[in-house]
C-alpha cells in the first residue's frame, strides 16, 4: 500500500460530515486536491449544506469516466457498499489519487483489497498534530467532545486509549 506524501485525497461522505460537525473540515486544506465524488457531494450537501463551501479547502466534484472494474463491482456487491463509496473507490482507482478517506469499515475493507490506502476522521485529526495544523491540546479537546458533537461512532474504551496515546 502506498502511503507516500499525499497531494490529493478522495472522500467518502463520512469524514466530510464528521469533520464538519467538529469544526475541523479545514484540516483538509493540507491536501492540494480534495476529490468528492458527485454522489458523495449530493449526500453531504443534503446533511451539511455549508460544508463543501469551506474556504481554503480545494474541493473538486468528480465522476468516474467508466463503470467499475469487475473486481470492484464484485467487492461492492459482496460488501453492500453504497453508491458514494463505490464512486469514491472507482475514482481513487482511476485518478490514482492519494488516500481514500472513509469511516466505513466495509468501504475500507474494499479499499484494502484493491490496495488503495484508506484513512478516516481519526487519522486526519491525529495527522493534524504531526502536520502542525493543531496542537495536541486542541486535538485532545476535539477527541473528548467527539461523542457529543459528532455522529462518528467509536468504542468508548478505544477512544480513551487514543486520548491517552495523544496525552503521552
Amino acid at each position, binding site marked *: 500500500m502506498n*502511503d507516500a506524501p499525499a497531494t490529493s485525497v478522495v472522500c467518502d461522505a463520512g469524514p466530510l460530515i464528521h469533520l464538519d460537525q467538529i469544526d475541523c473540515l479545514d484540516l483538509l486544506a493540507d491536501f492540494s486536491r480534495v476529490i468528492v465524488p458527485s454522489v458523495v457531494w449530493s449526500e453531504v450537501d443534503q446533511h451539511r449544506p455549508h460544508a463543501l463551501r469551506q474556504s481554503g479547502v480545494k474541493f473538486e466534484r468528480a465522476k468516474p469516466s467508466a463503470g467499475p472494474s469487475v473486481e470492484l463491482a464484485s467487492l461492492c456487491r459482496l460488501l*453492500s457498499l453504497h453508491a458514494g463509496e463505490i464512486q469514491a473507490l472507482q475514482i481513487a482507482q482511476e485518478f490514482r489519487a492519494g488516500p481514500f478517506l472513509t469511516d466505513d*469499515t466495509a468501504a475500507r*475493507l474494499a479499499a484494502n483489497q484493491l490496495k488503495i490506502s484508506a484513512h478516516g476522521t481519526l487519522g486526519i485529526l*491525529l*495527522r493534524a498534530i504531526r502536520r502542525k495544523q493543531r496542537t495536541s491540546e486542541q486535538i485532545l479537546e476535539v477527541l473528548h467532545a467527539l461523542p457529543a458533537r459528532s455522529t462518528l461512532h467509536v468504542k468508548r474504551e478505544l477512544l480513551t486509549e*487514543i486520548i491517552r496515546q495523544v496525552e503521552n
Partner: protein
Amino acid sequence: MSTEIRAELPPELLAQAHAYVEEGWATDVNELLTEALRRYLESHSSQLSEQFIREDVDWGLNGNE
C-alpha cells in the same frame, strides 16, 4: 425464535423495501431486514473496525508525509 422490535425508518427506505418484497426478491420485510442486518454486522465487525482505527491512529501520529 425471533423477537419483535420497534424501529423508525425513513419512509423512502421502507417504500424501497416493500417494492423489493413485492417484486418477489424476499418473502417479507422481516426477512429482508434480518438479512440486511446480518450482512451489515458481518461486514462491519467490531474487531475489523477497531483494527482500522488503530492503523489510522498510527498513520495519523507517525505517518511519514
